[in-house]
């Protein structure tokens, strides 16, 4: 960076009395984008929509006899969630009427561009799968077309789930820039939420074999999700240390673990009925939202030295 002489050389022996720490040394440099709670909701709905589709699609393709009836309900629900998510994405822009400008180019190096394209492409097979699922209810069954739409939606659906964390970690914002496992956590959490939603649908529809399988899958995924969550917490530990006391960190960590993992785990182990499935989903979504909300708020918190931009 420094051409002719390096600052290390220049400041190895700072002159006594000269206020080299003065000036702008302790002032914020980075500007925080106007991303607030709406982004936390966006991240949650993105995970709920893509996760539900992926969980339903994977289960249906692996065991169509057991999962097809639930998947046919899951796709329209995923579409509704995705539409809400897209609405938030558009609404959060400085100029919402220019949303389509994101589609004038494809930039693999821009997570937002990748995400927008994935979401746009994903919305097409998802809409087709949802429409064909609803049509099947009326007797117009185009099963091959529905399955084709589901298969076509897998890759963009996964991309739409995976880009969000990368978007929120590939930047210069305090805290966010160190969150190497944000993407890993969010994509893993999306499948977990999807599995929980599918489990609830199966329980509500009285699909016993599907409920039994999804119950076990949910427990496995719930335990698995602790790994990326723990890694994310480790990434954010230096940031949290600036924002919270050790006691507060422990308290929040335990609260998240208990509310988001232990309670859903206990409820699912305790009973296989729709009520426990509903309780599990509620606690899981609450934990997922809190994590996203706390994460989104990090750069806005003044001690980390950034200002609104």
């Amino acid at each position, binding site marked *: 960076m420094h*051409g002719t002489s390096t600052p290390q050389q220049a400041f190895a022996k700072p002159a006594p*009395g000269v206020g080299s720490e003065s000036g702008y040394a302790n002032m914020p*440099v980075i500007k925080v984008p106007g991303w607030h709670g709406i982004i936390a909701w966006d991240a949650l709905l993105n995970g709920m929509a893509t996760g539900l589709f992926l969980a339903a699609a994977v*289960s249906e393709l692996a065991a169509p006899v057991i999962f097809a009836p639930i998947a046919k309900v899951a796709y329209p629900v995923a579409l509704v969630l995705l539409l809400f998510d897209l609405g938030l994405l558009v609404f959060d822009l400085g100029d919402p009427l220019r949303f389509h400008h994101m589609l004038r180019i494809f930039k693999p190096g821009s997570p*937002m561009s990748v995400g927008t394209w994935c979401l746009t492409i994903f919305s097409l097979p998802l809409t087709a799968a949802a429409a064909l699922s609803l049509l099947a209810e009326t007797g117009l069954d185009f099963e091959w077309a529905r399955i084709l739409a589901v298969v076509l939606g897998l890759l963009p659906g996964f991309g739409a789930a995976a880009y969000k964390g*990368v978007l929120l*970690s590939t930047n210069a914002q305090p805290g966010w820039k160190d969150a190497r496992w944000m993407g890993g956590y969010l994509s893993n959490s999306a499948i977990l939420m999807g599995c929980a939603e599918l489990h609830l649908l199966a329980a509500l529809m009285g699909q016993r074999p599907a409920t039994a399988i999804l119950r076990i899958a949910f427990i*496995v995924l719930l335990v*698995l999700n602790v790994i990326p969550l723990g890694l994310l917490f480790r990434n954010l530990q230096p940031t949290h240390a600036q924002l919270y006391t050790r006691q507060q960190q422990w308290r929040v960590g335990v609260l998240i673990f208990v509310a988001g993992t232990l309670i859903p785990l206990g409820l699912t182990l305790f009973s296989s009925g729709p009520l426990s499935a509903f309780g599990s989903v509620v606690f899981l979504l609450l934990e997922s939202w809190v994590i996203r909300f706390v994460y989104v708020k990090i750069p806005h918190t003044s001690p980390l030295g950034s200002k609104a931009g």
Partner: protein
Amino acid sequence: MASREKQLSALPQTSDAPRGRLLELVERLIYPFRHGEPPEPRPATGFYTDTTVCIGCKACEVACKQWNQLPSDGFNWSGNSYDNTAELSATTWRHVKFIEQFSQELPSPLVSLDAAVADANPNRWLMMSDHCKHCLAAPCHQACPTGAIIHNEFENVYIQADICNGCSCCVASCPFGVITRSELGGHSHKCTLCYDRQRDGLEPACAKACPTQSIHFGPVEELREQARKRVEELHGRGVPQAYLYGDAPTDTYSEMHSFYLLVDRPSVYGLPDDPFNPWLHMMGDYVRSFTGGLAAIAALLVVVFLLKT
């Protein structure tokens, strides 16, 4: 003033032929997809700012505001020396910074230049005119999903205001806190390096107005040569602290087409000591994101396959 600007921008331009609402909508949808012919590349231009001769007159700020027709930000007392500009923003593309480094021991800050040079512990003012760094590998350019941010034919980082949709990805990614989203139009703005003037063979307004030649404008290679000679000259004149910031790439950041000659640590001037390009993490973040998602899908599939019979 802002509301008047809004009214004016809403008025139809005299060159626009009257159109119906439908045609206007169609035009609005199609317009961003029209890609013009890129101009022929020209020699890369930039700024070299010699902070040792800056006198803090703010002529550059005024010239920038005047030429680019940027509105006033109001007259606020920041309490930080003579700096009442406070920061770069969507309407302030030049920011003159003032750093007072005075020992408490001396009763008067007024010392002769000879005494200051001879003294190992000089009391001094540091002043610097800050602006966009026009980075060669600019994080804002990499982040922009619309392609609104481009490197123009002079290799300057330029925001096409008619394309930007205000997603704020550029704001999040700039490690210097330069780009800001305007509350007025919802689009991002920053220094254009007076692209319009350059196209007409003129130097940028700030460089033209600078009375001490602290701001040098020209082909980047020539500026680097000039800056290195100046550093050597300063070293010879007993200012060993002098060094260049941003003239050469580091392991974590590209060279900048606007670089500075500094005599104290970068952070004293409100610059990051070790700027980091967030994109260095992107591939790893994608890998972790895919791993997190694929691990969950694999776990779900294993459970489904094991239990479906």
